[in-house]
C-alpha cells in the first residue's frame, strides 16, 4: 500500500459545458504563451442533438506514463503521489512524448530557432517542477506550484459546474460513483480515460 494518495483527474461529460473556465484559468495562472494549451476543452458531435458532449482534457498523470518511457533524455520523473513532472532544462523538445501520449498532453511552444519546437510544456497538476519549490525559477519555467501552497489545481478550482475533479483516487472515485448512482442510468464501466491512464485500477 502506497503511503501517498494517488492523484487523479476526472472530467464528467454529463456536466462539462465547454465554458473553458479550466483552460483559461490554467493559461492565466501559469501565464502560458498563447500557443500552449496545457488544458483544452473539446466538444464532440457539435450541434447534433442527443450526441453532443464536451470534455476537458490535459495530462492525466498516468501510471506507467508512456511519455516517461519514451523520453530519450529521461527528463520525466513521477512523484510518489503519481504526478508526472519533467525537467525543462534537460528536455530537448524532440516531441516523442507527444506521439506516445494517449491524451495529447505535451505542448510545444514555437520559440526555438527559426520557429522550431521549443522544450515541452505540459500540465503539472499545479505542482511545479524539479526546481526549488515556489522559487521564481520554478514559477517561470513551470508556472504556479499550488499544491505546495495547499491549493487545488486551478482548473478544477475554477470549473463552473464541477465537472472537472482532481484529487486523490478515493475521493474522486467516490464522487464519480455518487453521480452515477444519482443519475441512475447510463452507467459506464469507468471514468473516461482512466482505463488508459491508470490501468484497471
Amino acid at each position, binding site marked *: 500500500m502506497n503511503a501517498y494518495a494517488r492523484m487523479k483527474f476526472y472530467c464528467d461529460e454529463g456536466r462539462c459545458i465547454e465554458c473553458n473556465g479550466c483552460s483559461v484559468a490554467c493559461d492565466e495562472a501559469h501565464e502560458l504563451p498563447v500557443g500552449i494549451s496545457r488544458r483544452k476543452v473539446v466538444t464532440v458531435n457539435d450541434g447534433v442533438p442527443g450526441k453532443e458532449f464536451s470534455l476537458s482534457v490535459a495530462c492525466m498523470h498516468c501510471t506507467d506514463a508512456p511519455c516517461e518511457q519514451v523520453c530519450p533524455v529521461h527528463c520525466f520523473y513521477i512523484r510518489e503521489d503519481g504526478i508526472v513532472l519533467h525537467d525543462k532544462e534537460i528536455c530537448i523538445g524532440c516531441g516523442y512524448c507527444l506521439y506516445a501520449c494517449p491524451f*495529447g498532453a505535451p505542448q510545444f511552444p514555437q520559440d526555438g530557432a527559426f520557429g522550431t519546437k521549443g522544450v515541452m510544456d505540459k500540465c503539472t497538476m499545479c505542482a511545479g517542477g524539479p526546481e526549488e519549490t515556489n522559487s521564481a525559477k520554478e514559477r517561470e519555467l513551470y508556472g504556479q506550484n499550488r499544491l505546495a501552497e495547499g491549493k487545488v489545481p486551478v482548473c478544477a478550482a475554477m470549473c463552473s459546474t464541477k465537472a472537472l475533479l482532481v484529487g486523490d483516487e478515493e475521493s474522486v472515485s467516490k464522487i464519480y460513483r455518487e453521480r452515477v448512482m444519482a443519475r441512475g442510468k447510463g452507467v459506464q464501466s469507468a471514468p473516461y480515460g482512466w482505463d488508459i491512464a491508470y490501468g484497471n485500477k
Partner: protein
Amino acid sequence: MATSKSAPRRGFWSRNKAYILVLLGFALLTYWYFWLATIADIQYVYRYFLQMLHGNFTGQLVPFDSLTHYQQMEVGLFGPRYDAIAPEVIRAFRERQEILPYVFAVEFTAFLIAFILQGGRKKATVTHPEDKVQVYSLFQRFVILLNILLVLYLFVTGFSITFGNWTGGGLIPRYMRMTHELVGLAWIPIWLIVTIIAFKDLKFFVRPSSRLFGKIFLKGRYTPMKRINYLAFVAFGFILIVSGFLLWYLYPDPKTHAQIIQFKRLMLFMHFMGSAIISFFLFETVYTYFVSVQGYLPAVITGKVPREYLEQLAPDILEEIEGYER
C-alpha cells in the same frame, strides 16, 4: 566498350549475388519484423494506408458515428486507436536506444571482416601523378560534398536524439535537435539533385554525348552493390524526407491534435525505420568509397584524378571520359 565485351561472362550467381543477398536480407528482416516482432496492429496499418489513398488521414477506420459514446469521447479528444501504433512507436524508440548500438557494432564488425578479407585498402600504382583527368565538375563536387556534410550532420544530430541517454539532454543536444529539423529541410533539394545526377543507369537509355552531360551526371557505371547503395539512398532518403518534412510541417497544434496524431505516429515510425535501415547502407557507402579504396576523398575535393588511378580502379569512368574526348 571493348573492355567490357572482352571480359569473361560470369555466371548468374556471381552477377546477381549482391541483389539476391540484399533482397533475402530484406525479406528476412521484413518477415521477422512484421510477422514476429512488431506489436503494432499490422492489419490496422495496412487498412490505414488504403484509407489514406482515399484522402482520409485521420486513421479513424470505422465511421465515427458508429462508435459508442465512450469510444467517441476517446477518439474525439485523443485520436483513434492509441493501441494500434503508439506502443510500437514507444517500443521502436526504446529498442533503437538500447539495441541499435549492438546492431551498429555488428555492422562495423562485418565491414571490418570484409576489409580484412579484402586484404586492406585497394591502391592504385601511380607513376605519372601529373597526368590527371577531370572526373568531377565543380557542380558535382559541390553537391557531393554538401550531401556528405549534410548527411553526416543529420546522422549525428538525428542519433543524438535517439541516444539521448548518452547525451543526457540539455542545451547542446536541444540545439542539435532543432538544427536537425532545419538541416533536414535544407537536405531535401540536395537529396533530389544527388538522386538525379547519381542515376548512372541513365546511360542504359541515353548515350553520354556532350561535355555538359558529363558535368551534370556522374560518370561511370554502377557495380551491383553500389547500385543497391544508390537505390537505398533514394528510397530510404525519400522515406526520411517525406516523414521528416511532415513531422516538421504538422506542428503540434492542440486544436487539430486528435485528427493528425495517428498520422504523425505513423510518420515517426517510418522515420525511425528509415533511419535505422539507411544507416546500414550509409555505412556500406562509406566503406565502399572511403575505406576500401584509397584516394576517393581527394578526388572529390579536387575533382581531378591521375589517369592511372582510373585505369586500375575505375575503367568505366575513364572509358566514358575518353568518349567525351574523342
